[in-house]
């Protein structure tokens, strides 16, 4: 069964909290990684690697730079 948007969001919130210390509750769909959450490019790589371990979908670097918001990443993982 496919993972739901809410399940991915919850998993992503946990990953982001572990890597950056940002509370998972602040990780909501409309947030921008750079502008709202102040996450830098290297932390984005760490998040992508952890997300791959968690959800099994690889996010290559050339795709990663196009994923600006939490929703972008959730959609990428879902598809």
């Amino acid at each position: 069964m496919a993972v739901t948007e809410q399940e991915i969001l919850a998993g992503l919130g946990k990953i982001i909290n572990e890597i950056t210390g940002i509370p998972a509750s602040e990780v909501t769909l409309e947030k921008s990684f750079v502008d709202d959450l102040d996450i830098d490019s290297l932390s984005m790589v760490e998040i992508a690697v952890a997300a791959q371990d968690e959800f099994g979908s690889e996010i290559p670097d050339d795709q990663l730079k196009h994923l600006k918001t939490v929703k972008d990443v959730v959609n990428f993982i879902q598809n």
Partner: protein
Amino acid sequence: MRLPLGSPGAKVLAFGHYQPANVVTNDDLAKLIETNDEWIQSRVGIKERRFAGPEESEIELAVQAGGKALAASGLAAGDIDLVIVATCTLEAQIPNAAGRVAHRLGISAPGAYDVNAACAGFCYALAAASDAIRAGSAVNVLVVGTEKLTQWVDIEDRATSVIFADGAGAAVVVPSETPGIGPVVWGSAGDKYDAIIIKDRHSALHQEGQTVFRWATTALHPIAKQACERAGVDPAELAAFVPHQANLRIIESLARRLGADNAVVAKDIVLAGNTSAASIPLALSRMIERGEVPSGGLALLLGFGAGLTYASQVIEIP
């Protein structure tokens, strides 16, 4: 035809290092380019680094470090019969650095060659030195890692100019009855050749930061563990972990995944920047000088960089 007997093992008898006098802080760089101390420290962990002046070539840096290692070893220049210089930033490609460094140090007619495995260069050269001694091709070897990265970096490219720096480190490697340099685990990932590259003689060094970061934090800790396994050493037995000083976040990630709970982890990048092939001997030599690591303890070295190349081995700290 017959073969020489060689030596059962090889060990590092002494280290030496040299840094140019010119200290460049993050605030100094912020006067030249659009950057700031907080940005640099949070991304790469560097507070300051050294830039060589026009009068200090990569050869000069190597001579200074090599001379100190030789003096600390107690050997005479005439005792050295092989000189290997690891570098990827020579100003000119011909002649090699090793012959010039040897000549300046008064080492007469040694075997002399350079190794370019970028930031992994010192570990490659150390393995080559150990193997040469064990095979009987050499008796005493001077291994130097030297880099003048600033001459290949564009100061305007803040993705590289805040990271890379100049320096040199050296080791005198000698025969030993017991193994003092463990088996090397080395390899490469040529599919990522363009992740760290100088495209041609008119170009500056370019680095795909995210690609290198991802590779370094996911592909290398198994190599480090393998180097321990091949040497028959449990990571918990290590007194020091000295990875290439690429980025403090990479160093901390590698240390976490290695599980070397009793090891002092080299964080020389904070005050030295990334000096490529020089960073491992520079860091370890300074740790020895400060008395942070015990003589006779085991150190795990892990070099990685452009190529992409990597190499790792356990050594006994002199």
